[in-house]
């Protein structure tokens, strides 16, 4: 894929009326789901669109289920719900008085959510979750290792790496002062990146535990993405695409590659193409742009609205890389079909 192939992406927008907390596709790419602050899951396919009320309050966290045909949503009603592409819902967990703010899954089968300071982990095929021990603070993010054998929780003071098969065993901890709010493994499993409260990114080399810090972001980093080849790490929170090169000796002492300086707006959401170094950035003013790292250029997919555009936070690629969905705080859902040439 190259930007030359993308001539005139077909753009559609929908008003969902409430904060879009997450977007995801089924594995076949045919159904797009968007979860909102009204507790609804909108399921959109060629055959038609269906909206399911899955939560009493707001959806706070959202992910594709490992089965590839359903979705996981956590809400401020204390429930974790599975919604199929046909609109059937199933309650997987209910913890009254708690918020389910973090959910994550691995395509090989396991998934997990955070309940306060603990994780609840469903091993592949498990009907009931197992609880990890408590972390030093409320869990703010989780990610599975690329092989699906580990699940890592971000919290105050660092991250904890648990074994999916033995959540009762003591975790490996990687410590760095401050509050960690996001965590993402590199696809080759060699690096673990976190975003911290103080507008920085922290990265550990997992073999040695050696770590590095990347600072200077305009705001707090919320989303981290690695390219499929594990060479580049990008994030939101700057006014352009900022890419750190992890090939060779890594990014230490090297400036990042920066490209796609647009209108000065700060990026509030980012997703990476499943195979190529292409990125979709969503911006604080409602704009959406595609970034092409090889060509060091960008393509505007959606101009920000003339006034009152709201931050675009939830972005996802379909697994074939040709469809993109972007959800904004004001409920604007945009879909981009890149394959129109």
């Amino acid at each position, binding site marked *: 894929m190259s930007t030359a192939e993308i001539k005139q992406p077909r753009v559609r927008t929908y008003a969902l009326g409430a*904060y879009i907390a997450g977007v995801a596709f089924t594995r076949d790419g045919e159904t797009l789901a968007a979860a*909102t602050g009204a507790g609804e899951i909108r399921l959109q396919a060629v055959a038609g669109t269906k909206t399911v009320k899955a939560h009493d309050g*707001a959806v706070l966290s959202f992910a594709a289920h490992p089965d590839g045909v359903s979705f996981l949503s956590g809400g401020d009603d204390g429930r974790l719900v599975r919604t199929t592409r046909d609109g059937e819902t199933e309650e997987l967990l209910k913890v009254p008085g708690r918020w389910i703010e973090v959910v994550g899954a691995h395509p090989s089968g396991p998934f997990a959510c955070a309940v306060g300071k603990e994780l609840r982990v469903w091993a592949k095929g498990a009907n009931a979750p197992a609880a990890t021990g408590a972390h030093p603070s409320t869990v703010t993010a989780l990610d599975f290792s690329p092989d699906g054998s580990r699940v890592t929780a971000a919290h105050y003071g660092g991250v904890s790496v648990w074994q999916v098969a033995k959540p009762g065993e003591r975790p490996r901890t990687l410590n760095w002062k401050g509050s960690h709010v996001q965590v993402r493994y590199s696809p080759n499993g060699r690096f673990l990146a976190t975003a911290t409260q103080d507008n920085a990114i922290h990265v550990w080399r997992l073999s040695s535990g050696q770590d590095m810090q990347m600072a200077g972001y305009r705001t*707090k980093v919320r989303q981290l993405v690695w390219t499929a080849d594990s060479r580049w790490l990008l994030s939101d929170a700057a006014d352009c695409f900022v890419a750190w090169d992890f090939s060779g000796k890594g990014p230490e002492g090297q400036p990042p590659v920066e490209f796609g300086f647009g209108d000065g707006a700060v990026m509030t959401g980012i997703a990476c193409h499943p195979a190529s170094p292409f990125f979709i950035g969503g911006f604080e003013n409602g704009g959406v742009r595609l970034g092409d790292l090889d060509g060091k250029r960008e393509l505007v997919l959606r101009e920000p609205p003339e006034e009152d555009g709201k931050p675009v936070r939830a972005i996802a690629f379909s697994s074939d890389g040709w469809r993109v969905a972007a959800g904004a*705080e004001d409920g604007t859902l945009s879909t981009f079909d890149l394959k129109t040439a």
Partner: protein
Amino acid sequence: MSTTQIPVTVLTGYLGAGKTTLLNRILSENHGRKYAVIINEFGEVGIDNEIVVGTDEEIFEMNNGCICCTVRGDLIRTIGGLMKRAGKLDGIIVETTGLADPAPVAQTFFTDDEVRAKTRLDAVVTLVDAKHFPLRLEDSREAEDQVAFADVILLNKTDLVSPEELKKVEARIRQINPYAAIHRTAKSAIDIAKVLDKGAFDLQRILTLDPHFLEGGHHHHDHDHDPATCTDPAHDHSHDHHHQDHDHDHDHHHHGEVNPKHADDIFSVSATIAGDVDPDKFQRWITDTLRDEGQNILRSKGILSVKGAVQRYVFQAVHMIADSTWGQKWREGEKRGSKIVFIGRHLDAAKLNAGFEACRE
């Protein structure tokens, strides 16, 4: 800009001061507004129709080298979650535990981007139990901090004390925080307009809580001091400049035991300049002062007259986090002056006064 930001009222007060009663009053009143309440202790908050969220207090240090820069991680998360909900919120009320330090709560609203974009700290409202406050001061640093941080103080349970006791406790509060608005209440009964939407952290409205901020000053200069107070040169200085001194100093004369004198008591220091300040000198001085003394300075506020400027220059800070802007215009023929107030511990009043004096235009 502030019109789209949701006002946040922070409710503090030692255990048993009446926070839950006040909260229930606010929420049960037929005001037609939608509030979300964040509570750290599960009391008998029994409200249908309102959003009540319980969180565990999580104090996070920032990694930016500023040691007193702590924030409340639980508030950052909870406010982020509330912003996802469908439907408009008219306000957020944060009820802290009786032992909570108000500083990280306040600092959260100045340091986190997302919280700052969506909400604004409206005021810190502190409930004080008129009967037990003197005891609380003996055994808890938090009770004193909560009063020092307050923009609005509800001197509650006034029905349980004699008028003399009430006068004494109010004088003690004034000694810690001379500029908060004090309302005497029984059973937390108060017009909610006096508690909500005060704009205490809005620099444009800094005078609304204390319209006499620039007045007072020197006319109490010559009255008596409690001998105990005078042993502390810092206290001596601070008292010289308060307009509230008269009452409480007299009290101390007759009831010296009301003012247990500890080395780490909170007190305030104010300094005035009859005319203009040099804005560059002031900026350098206040930056250095907050950097060096920001741990001891809980809150500070200033209103300055700058030569040739038609507007007041207003300033405020919570520990080291400062904010300043141009405020209301000076009226035609109005007597212009500059004043700054610090509330904190171990303040060197002589040094602060000299430093401010050196900013004179």
